[in-house]
């Protein structure tokens, strides 16, 4: 009886739902693709490669969402930083200096967001959207909307080198390290617990001695830094700082966070689930591409996938809620 309950509880877990969904996606596309070409090693690398830049934006916005905040400027911030980084390199600045300077610019934009939200009192949604517009305009101004080539050998090595028979890109290692770091930070440290507490009940967190404004500043600055890093990594991968940059990846990042269980309301979710969520989204989109499905239908299918995951998640939460109230 106990083991049956444990089994049921296990399957009610969000992570298991995601893993089952991932297995279904992989199995379906493996069967549907010709000779199982979906699982071709080069294609698996493609799935992971596309996660690199998006994953940094997901971590950026995910931390803020857990705290009950949102940052809509990650894409524009990352794009601006990507082109500034390329310009600094083009201007002869040594790559470590350019890297640090660009990260500082990204962090400054994050701090500005935090000030607008915490000091001026703007809604995060409005404040970060306005900052995104400013950053987008500055991106065009920076080099008259013209892309800037990246030729620094170290940076291009980071962006394009692959290990293990061409299967493991350096950029993917960076993304995985970032994921592990933030999973530990949010799941096993006092700082992480504070973020969850603020997201769950800001006032209660404040009364228990946590400083929500300070944490908010840290998270916005962190978001700015990760956005800048995403822009830098994309510039390294493309060998070019472009005006489109990471803008179009911002909402993929938010979608992955939500699919992985991070709630818009704050206080819940973890990056293990987010990682699986990203795998599902990328694996699903890649599978549709492998099958030659029109990009329009891919968009529809991705939306249905997200709706499906959200519905399952909602039903699970509802069931758990009922169980708790019965016990009460």
């Amino acid at each position, binding site marked *: 009886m106990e083991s049956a309950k444990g089994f049921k509880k296990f399957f009610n877990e969000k992570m298991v739902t995601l893993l089952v969904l991932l297995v279904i996606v992989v199995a379906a596309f493996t069967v549907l693709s010709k000779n199982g*070409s979906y699982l071709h090693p080069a294609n698996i690398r*493609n799935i992971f490669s596309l996660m690199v830049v998006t994953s940094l934006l997901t971590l950026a916005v995910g931390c803020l969402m857990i705290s009950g905040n949102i940052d809509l400027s990650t894409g524009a911030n990352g794009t601006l930083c990507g082109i500034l980084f390329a310009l600094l390199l083009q201007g002869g600045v040594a790559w470590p200096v350019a890297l640090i300077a660009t990260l500082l610019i990204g962090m400054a934009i994050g701090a500005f967001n935090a000030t607008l939200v915490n000091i001026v009192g703007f809604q995060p949604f409005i404040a970060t959207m306005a900052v995104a517009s400013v950053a987008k305009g500055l991106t065009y101004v920076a080099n008259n909307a013209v*892309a800037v080539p990246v030729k620094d050998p170290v940076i291009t090595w980071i962006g394009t080198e692959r290990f293990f028979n061409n299967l493991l890109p350096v950029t993917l290692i960076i993304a995985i390290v970032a994921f592990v770091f933030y999973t530990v930070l949010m799941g096993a440290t006092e700082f992480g617990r504070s973020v969850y507490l603020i997201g769950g009940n800001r006032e209660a967190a404040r009364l228990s001695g946590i400083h929500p404004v300070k944490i908010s500043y840290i998270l916005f600055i962190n978001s700015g830094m990760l956005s800048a890093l995403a822009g830098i990594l994309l510039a390294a991968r*493309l*060998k070019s700082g472009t005006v489109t940059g990471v803008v*179009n990846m911002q909402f993929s990042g938010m979608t992955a966070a939500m699919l992985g269980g991070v709630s818009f309301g704050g206080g819940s979710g973890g990056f293990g689930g987010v990682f699986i969520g990203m795998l599902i989204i990328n694996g699903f989109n890649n599978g549709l591409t492998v099958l*030659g*499905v*029109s990009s329009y239908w891919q968009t529809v*299918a991705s939306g249905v996938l997200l709706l499906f995951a959200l519905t399952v998640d909602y039903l699970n939460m509802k069931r758990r809620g009922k169980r708790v109230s019965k016990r009460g």
Partner: protein
Amino acid sequence: MKKIISLLLVVLMAAGLLACGGGGQNGNIETSGTETQTPDASASETAAAPPDGGADTPAVSADAPQNVGYIDDPVDHFARDTYQIAYLSPAFMFLQQSWFAAMQAFEERLNFKVTSFTGENNSDTYLTNIELIASQGYDGIIMDCEQPVAVRAYEIIEETGVPYIAFVQSLLDENGKTVCPQVVLDQYDTGKKTIDWLIANYKSYWGEIDASTLGLIDCTVTTSPDLALRAVAPEEIFKATFPEGHYFMADMAAAGGVTADAAYTQVMATVSAHPEIEHWWVTGSTEFFGSGSARVFDDLGKVDDALVCVVGAGANIVDWDSMTPDTKSSLVACLAISDLLYAAPAVSGVIALIDGRATKETLWRDKTPADWQFGTDYGVWLVENDIITRDTYKTYFEEINAKYLLSGGHTD
């Protein structure tokens, strides 16, 4: 209720997956053809095939190798397996759909199957798709690549070994030189033709006018080097021809991009701000700017005071088709580039490369202009184009369709 919704979503997803498995809109690599190329054949194997072919080398008629890579290439395309060709574009909007449909129109005649891939306006996705295409065993790629990622795209596609040509946009190296055969427009020349046409024809609409009452709005997209080139000649020629005239550049880069609405907003603002200008010309890098601009003069009741002539025809033809003979419009002409004229050399060229009957160094070398601005190391197929008007556009497209689709088809 929620369980029902959940169930519905599951069914939708399952149906979607099954539909995908059924081939999707663009088809699967597993085609219905009886001589389908084995998908296992790796791209590098394809590329490594000797130039003289092998077992699958198509039979070539006695007068070969003339016209290799041309639509009237005398090779028997049915002496080999059906080639799987990928068309890779940065996005898949109106223009890309039109080009893709034009490529598909040649599938039965040239014995290939084309599938579209898009970067969805995401450079990272675009580059990853090159590797995806190679990993899925496609035989060749027709590649529409934006300049900012061209250098990296070139490196990646060279690594894959899949034969390819550049399409619509030149693929340039770090020094701005072409790196492969390409089917492109002479961008500067297209803009020149539109302003030349306006200069040659405006008197038939307005008679003699005072040049100081004339304004030119030159619609461009500075973020796209190719599209920006189309706006250069109108500026140069207008300023030289009408020094007293008023020149305005309308940049859509930060105003909504390549859309008719962006053009409407920008042109409306310019025209409204200059009531002293009595006559307006509009040139533009894309057809959408023609549609958007014409709407401005309709709305302002200035149809008779404006002449619009832009590069590109598709959207303008839709406008013209919707007009009755009595409808007045400032959209008087445009530079037409039939999609078939783009698609025919693209598919013929990449097939010649896959066959091994041409290499990227030899394909279309006779077509390359001696003074081509991006270098002459590789073949450059400049797509033919013509100015068409509301009176001539139907005849123009009928003639192109007859030439490319109704003659010389495979009759087996």
